[in-house]
């Protein structure tokens, strides 16, 4: 029963979503609406599960005095701080001027933004140390990157300002993006889509069961 019921649920829900595309009328439109609503709620709970799990792991780390357990305390305090403030401020917790918005603007925003912005340094460093035209394929990759990087910023246009319009670096970058790049991207897109279609079919038919885990 631990495996059969989930398999039946997966099959029924999957089939309903396929059928409603072709028959968007009662009862499938109604089932589509129910399932979409439920999906939204279940997904919210799944993310809650993730957050609660983070708390659980952090508490365990503190209880067992594992290395760097002090940082686990910081995680819990930060979590509780924003959570309590968010709950206390009620439905309008995101209105301008609330404490929640303050935390968003001056704590969450700088931290998350800088965390991603730091990657710029590593991209440049990797380009210097590892981006080599070793063979024809790598040269193509490098040239495409070169022309796109130059052609997508105003300096590319300035460097080739002596050329007639339509033949400048900007135009070359536009051509690369709209034709060969689109072709390659489309091949990848179709390949991935066919993979998703076949995997989805296997899941709906119950052939693929790895998501259910062991017993």
């Amino acid at each position: 029963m631990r495996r059969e019921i989930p398999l039946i649920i997966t099959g029924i829900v999957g089939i309903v979503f396929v059928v409603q595309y072709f028959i968007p009328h009662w009862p499938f439109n109604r089932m589509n609406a129910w399932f979409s609503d439920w999906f939204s709620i279940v997904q919210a709970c799944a993310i809650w599960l993730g957050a609660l799990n983070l708390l659980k792991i952090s508490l365990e780390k503190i209880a067992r005095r594992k290395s760097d357990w002090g940082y686990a305390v910081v995680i819990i305090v930060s979590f509780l701080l924003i959570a309590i403030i968010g709950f206390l401020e009620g439905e309008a917790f995101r209105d301008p001027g609330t404490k929640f918005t303050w935390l968003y603007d001056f704590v969450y925003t700088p931290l998350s933004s800088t965390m991603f912005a730091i990657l710029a340094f590593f991209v440049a460093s990797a380009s210097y140390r590892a981006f080599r035209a070793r063979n024809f394929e790598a040269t193509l990759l490098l040239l495409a990157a070169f022309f796109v990087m130059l052609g997508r910023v105003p300096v590319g246009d300035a460097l080739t300002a002596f050329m007639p319009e339509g033949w400048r670096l900007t135009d070359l970058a536009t051509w690369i993006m709209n034709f060969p790049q689109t072709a390659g991207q489309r091949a990848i897109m179709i390949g991935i889509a066919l993979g998703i279609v076949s995997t989805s079919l296997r899941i709906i038919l119950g052939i693929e069961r790895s998501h259910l885990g062991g017993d």
Partner: protein
Amino acid sequence: MFWEHFALWVAAFLTLGIYSFLYKDNPWYKLCESIFVGISAGYWFVTLFWDNIYGKFWVGVFPTGDAQPDYWLLVGAALGLLMLLRLIPKIGWVSRWSLAFIVGATAGFYLINYFSSNVMRQVQDTVMPLFGPGFNASAYVIIGNIVVAVGTFTGLVYFFFSKEHKGAFGASAKIGIFFLMVTFGASFGYTVMSRMSLLIGRIDFLLSDWLGLIR
């Protein structure tokens, strides 16, 4: 007034803390990282509560005014609760029902969407007319159409691994690799663009908003 200055200093302190990682991993960075993890999880937790658990589920089941209650949402809430039971190891297996629902819905939805939007529509647009009555396109467009058709087809040939890449098949797979390399190169160029933009945003914050150095 004090809070405005304090807010800027907090944001700057956290920004610099993350950047300190460029020197090496250190306690300042770890502190900022832990605050980020906690605040981030707390942010999701609160937002999901107000927008989904309360805003969608509670308001849906217990509406105010003339709206009709939607008791079907209770099924979604029940599935959500089952998901949360994963936190209790003894009965954690029941969360598979919710997981099965999510997987089934996603599989059914993706099967159709990906096939329709990412396969059918893309194939339709790949094979374009080059000449014929009533067809009047510039050489730029015609060459572009040929490039897209050849690039997409050969790119797909490259992804076909059930047949050995030899002879004419191998040659077209080779051409496919060239297109893919251009695609990856262009993507790399755009990635650099993106990473640099994020860095510009943070540096602008430090030099302009915080220190007021930029006029």
